[in-house]
């Protein structure tokens, strides 16, 4: 687990006109990576050692969170970013998807209950931070919808699913 193993700071010998002092912190994690913070002004009366210790604790907490997220992703497969998912579609299908999103509400040929499902589905796509792998059923459903509109072939869908499962 990533964590800070060394924290040091250097402070200017001289003070500023308000009594504060420039301080630079140097934190090193267990992988040898160096994180520098500053120069920042440490107010008169504040202990830079305390500030440094608090920052090291915050960094450890952030590292723990990041490690937990990475562990979760590694148990499945690293999720695709939405951009990576769009790259899988190919430009023609990508454009068809964007056109569908932009026009389905005004399409009189789509029943209202279908529009309800599509609206929420597209909203969930927009809300999503990434595309899980293997693909969720709702993503497969969206690909199926594009297929019914002639924007994608089954062969393309099979290739995308295979890439997601790889």
């Amino acid at each position, binding site marked *: 687990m990533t964590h800070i193993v060394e924290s040091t700071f250097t402070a*200017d*010998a*001289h*003070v*500023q*006109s*308000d009594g504060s002092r*420039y*301080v*630079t912190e140097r934190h090193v994690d267990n992988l040898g990576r*160096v*994180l*520098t*913070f*500053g*120069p*920042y*002004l*440490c*107010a008169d009366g*504040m202990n830079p050692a305390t*500030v440094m210790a*608090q*920052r090291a604790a*915050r960094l450890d*907490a*952030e590292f723990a*969170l990041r490690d937990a997220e990475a562990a979760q992703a590694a148990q499945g497969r690293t999720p695709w970013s*939405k*951009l990576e998912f769009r790259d899988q579609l190919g430009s023609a299908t990508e454009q068809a998807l964007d056109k569908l999103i932009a026009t389905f509400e005004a399409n009189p040929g789509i029943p209202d209950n279908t529009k309800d499902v599509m609206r*929420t589905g597209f*909203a*969930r796509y*927009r*809300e999503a*931070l990434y595309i899980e792998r293997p693909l969720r059923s709702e993503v497969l459903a969206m690909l199926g919808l594009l297929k019914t509109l002639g924007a994608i072939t089954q062969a393309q869908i099979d290739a995308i699913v295979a890439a997601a499962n790889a």
Partner: protein
Amino acid sequence: MATYKVWSGATGANNGTSWTDAYTSFASAVSAATASGDIILVHYTSQLNLAADTTFTFLNNVSVISVDKDASDAPTAMGTGGWIGHSTTTYGIALAGAYRVYLYGITLRIAASSTRTINLAATDGADQTIENCYLWVGTTASGGSVILGTGSSSSNGSVRSKNSTWRFGAASQGITLGARLLVEGGSISSAGSAPSTLFNSFYPNAAPVWFRGVDLSFLGSGTLVGSAGSGAVTFNFDRCLLGTSYVALATQTPANLSAAEVYILDCSTGSAQGLYGYHNAQGSVVSDTGIKLTASAAGQSWKITTTANASFYTPFVTPWISFYHSGTSAITPRIEILRDGSTTAYNNDEVWAEWLVKVTASSPLATLYSDRRGLTSSAAAQDTGAGTGSWTGASGTAWSGKCDSGASVTPASVGDLSGRLCVGAANATVYASPEPLVA
């Protein structure tokens, strides 16, 4: 151009035509506002609770204004008493639509403990202005945040925030930036949690970012710009109140000028005025009032500190200092510098100056001058400056020098000249007087 009314307490026809018949959901009003110039009025005490993650897609250039229906529709902010969102359940909120949308006094609120976000400008081409609004990321989930833009590095988006409040639910939260951002006035609410890093993720399409007159003091010793972003984004903080012991810029990856940079313009954590700062992956400039050229009206020096990434060929370069010069005779402009803690002179491959001077009559074209050593020449010590006795605050061991234009220059007209310093020495500290001299 129509006006639609929204009030969570309405019990009438739910068609938005009056306060009695106001819509009880914000989504209904957004769907109805299809013409450019349409206005949505929201009664400020409305608690418009969502039932799911919701994207409000505006269908045209629309304004949304929070008003007091009981005071002749006077603009009145929702504050913390009203909202669009939820107070006990986590539902994400996105404002979308490739249009110009203005919101006044609206509170967007997410709550509880699940990861959800408030997403503004959630469509490619969205241009959204929020004034006196309250962005309330009340969820305590570490992944909660305010997202500006679509999350794609290739889309267009703009968010302008005037006198609005940004509130976070956990120290790990912050702003994910994928749109142009201008913030004027407002604050980070002390009623929430202070982000340890304000901008924890950003994309190249965010450049540049401006914060003017914003109270960021609640961030305390947090970091303004983190290291997890991508792109050479410039962040500007102008006349803001900053946190005690704040850090401007985290260690950047990559460790070069293709990463973020931060300008601090007349900002401080207390009452100090006129403090300046500039930070990038190769070094920083900060105002130092403890060591300064005594006779300078600046009342401070620029403390230049380079990282290990600075070199002769890729030096740390300070911003330009522009000054007015009223003569057209030959001059040798210079910047006085000080090396504290050592009597060894800096060489002209360690510290040098660059100047932009218009020397051609009737032409706006400026010429660049420098006293940098030649690329294949040997280094030489920079000239002695005004003397260590001309500096206040230095230790007893110091070297005073100057960096000039290399040769005299003759301005062709009265006007601005510009000078800056380049520091090619890694892990070095140079004090410079930010008031160039010509006499």
